[in-house]
């Protein structure tokens, strides 16, 4: 009991006291990057800038995006580092971002940064919409390994495919947006009509389809590629398929929050995030980087990756999102016949 009271007293006291600061500046960084990666980035940055300490707020893309937008009137974040461009573009539209041209911006592939000058956000690594196929299940269930998006509409895959619901997940919308861009409006919807007949489940998380494929719940999952790499490293019998028509993508980006009290430190972080040192750290965690000269082939990833990436206009994708989602939901979201 006494211990509990002590804890209670300590906590009550700590409310009033501003936490003792070891570094001069505490930088609050919102991220959706994997926990495993964060420690390395933090260590490298703090070694370079000993007077700045990174405080991560890490959650899934949807939650972090919702939290950032909910805090709009009184932002708590100083920097966003490692959130998809599709989400960061929303903050840009809301006027929440501070435009900044970090040192070394000229070396960033123009496809992977905001088009404004100075840009609102700058990319680090690229994640492509790929197909995760469970090779063991495919063999067991006599399924051929697909090679293109079109293949997924074949009747043999009926009920075998999972993809994220674009109304719940940015990854899902990213895929839909890419199909519409690659195939064109009409063919894109016709493709999705046929794909819908084969979908076993629409999930509410962007990475779940690949996880489910890894566990054999469903043999095929449409998801971003890096999750497949992680799962393969854990021992999942996964094969990553990069469809021949082209790959939709999202970009892990860095951006400054307008009104941050630590703007100078935040700028240093953005400079660091696009520096050579940072890109060397990104290497094992992305198959394609915003500075292509640093690309290394990941053992888990097939060749012919970089060439298949399409160029996404994130502002346009964001602008038409509501209309596309409405149409998508009317067609496929709910009231679906049990297959």
């Amino acid at each position: 009991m006494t211990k509990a009271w002590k804890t209670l007293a300590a906590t009550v006291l700590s409310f009033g006291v501003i936490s003792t600061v070891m570094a001069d500046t505490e930088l609050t960084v919102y991220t959706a990057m994997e926990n495993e990666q964060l420690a390395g980035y933090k260590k490298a940055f703090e070694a370079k800038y000993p007077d700045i300490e990174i405080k991560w707020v890490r959650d899934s893309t949807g939650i972090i995006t919702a939290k950032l937008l909910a805090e709009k009137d009184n932002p708590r974040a100083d920097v966003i580092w490692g959130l998809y461009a599709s989400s960061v573009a929303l903050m840009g539209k809301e006027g929440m971002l501070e435009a900044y041209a970090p040192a070394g911006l000229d070396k960033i592939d123009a496809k992977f940064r905001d088009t404004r000058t100075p840009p609102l956000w700058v990319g680090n690594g690229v994640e492509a919409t790929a197909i995760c196929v469970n090779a063991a299940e495919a063999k067991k269930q006599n399924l051929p390994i697909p090679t293109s998006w079109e293949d997924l509409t074949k009747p043999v895959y009926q009920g075998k495919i999972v993809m994220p619901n674009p109304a719940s997940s940015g990854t899902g919308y990213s895929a839909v947006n890419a199909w519409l861009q690659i195939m064109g409006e009409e063919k894109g919807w016709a493709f999705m009509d046929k794909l819908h007949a084969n979908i076993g489940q629409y999930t509410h998380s962007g990475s779940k389809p690949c996880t489910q494929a890894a566990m054999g719940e469903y043999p095929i999952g449409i998801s971003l590629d890096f999750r497949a790499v992680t799962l393969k490293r854990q021992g999942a019998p996964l094969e990553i398929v990069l469809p021949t028509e082209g790959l939709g993508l999202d970009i892990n980006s860095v951006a400054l929050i307008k009104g941050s009290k630590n703007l100078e430190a935040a700028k240093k972080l953005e400079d660091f995030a696009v520096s050579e040192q940072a890109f060397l750290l990104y290497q094992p965690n992305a198959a394609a980087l915003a500075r292509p000269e640093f690309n290394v082939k990941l053992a888990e990833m097939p060749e012919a990756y970089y060439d298949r990436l399409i160029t996404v206009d994130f502002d346009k994708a964001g602008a038409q999102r509501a209309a596309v989602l409405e149409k998508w939901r009317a067609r496929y979201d709910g009231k679906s016949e049990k297959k």
Partner: protein
Amino acid sequence: MSSLPYARSVAQPAQPAPRRAQAALLDALFARGVKLLMVVLLVVGLALPLIAMLGKVVEVQNGLAGVWQFVSSSRFLWLLGNSVKVSLSTVALVVPLAYVFAYAMQRSWIPGKRLLRSISLLPLMAPSMLSAIALIYLFGNQGMLKSWFPDGIYGFSGILLGQAFYNFPMALMILVSALGLADARLYDASVSMGANHWKTFVNVTWPGTRYAVFAASCLVFTQTITNFGIPVVIGGDYQVLAMEAYKSVVGQQKFSEGALIGSILLVPALISFAVDAWMRRLRGSQVSSQAATYVAPRNRVRDTVLLLAAGAIALALLSLVLVAVGASLINFWPYDLSFSLRHYDFETSGGVGWLAYRNSLTLAGLTALIGTPIIFTCAYLMEKTRGGWFDGLLRLLCMLPMAVPGLVMGLGYVFFFNHPGNPLGGMYGGIALMVLCCVMRFLTPAQMTATTALRQLNDEIEAASLSLKVPLATTYWRVTVPICLPALLEVFRYLFVSSMTSVSALIFLYSPDTVLAAVAVLNLDDSGNVGAAAALASLILLTSALVSVALYLISRGLLVHTQHWRSARV
């Protein structure tokens, strides 16, 4: 000579008068003070954040017309139908089972009661992710018992089972406390009048517990209809309203639509509030101050049936938990089934595991320590003192928390406490705010348990102490608290274990230093580390179980002291 008695008769009332006034003043201070504290907490921790969130409803496109368009759309009605269907099914499954279980606990001589009761509490102690993982491992497409659900577990059956697992202990908590107190004299009368078992049940047991059955049903219904965690993981294509709110907020950042659905989901709780107010007028049999504790007579047939039923329920609950714990010890399910402890190495899966674990312990401990006395005292005062409209307000506010989807509450906290003009803004991101949030989130079931126990105590106790001029606070402390100690401990345990496992509202509130274990479970699962998620969930479960055992051991001594009256027949 004659003046003396005269003087005495004047002096006699004159002397205690100030003391009586003083006692009355103290009573008023005690009653009003605690109630006022509770109202302040509820207004700051619930009403204002809720208003801040509901304020977003006005941002729905096209204003009122937009709201009407949304509410009258066939999609909405379809979702509503699905929500009501799955919630009613959960009530129909959970409440009868919980009643039978509670009956077996309180009105039978079956062996192993303590073990059964402990098992029945397990679902409360596990993050909801644990049951989802277990259900998928058991009945999913790769599941061991896949053939039980030929249409697949994803969908209606998955939601129903997940919700039933999660809600069972809460319904049980209320029903056990209702069946725990009964007046033996009524049973003696019934038996001596020749009534059989069934008749006694209908005429004595049922009237004494129907309020609790109603309360438990309301609780299960509202909890099910507002929960999105289970449908999101295992709902497949079966869509419900709470999931729609999740999609709006997390998927599309349309806070206004999430708020609109959130406010619609408040309706069932408001209805329960109205019915509750009505039922209070019909208050049935209670335990009077002359009550003798009823101890059910031995009956072999009844006990065999009850043992089988309770055993089957406990086995079902236990197997889900064991499957999840098993999942955490397997290398890579379902392809490498070798034993492995690697999932317990949280350093490799991100390193937040242990910090989060410590934070969760602190949060749970504080929530239980602060929440229990406030909730229980307030429940007592609401039952035993009259405060007019103020009581009505308090009652309504106490019913609200269970009706607010966690997501809506969490966002409300962000909007309210992070508002630039809020003087309480400093609490944002701190553990104090999270404690407040937890006390609010779990207030309703805790308060219901307390109320159910208190309602069965006759007001004569207060009347007697009033005539003895004992301050109310003394009566409460010396009589009511000891009598209700089991229910009080139940509330403490409930607050502790629920705070250990809670995710939905807190996911928006933690800061870098206050990450939580249950949130980490969610993120581990999301990032594909199902094994690590199961491992951390098992660890949370184990912690809660240990704390419950410790609580039990500490309290046993106290109980032996205070519960003599239960076993001793008057």
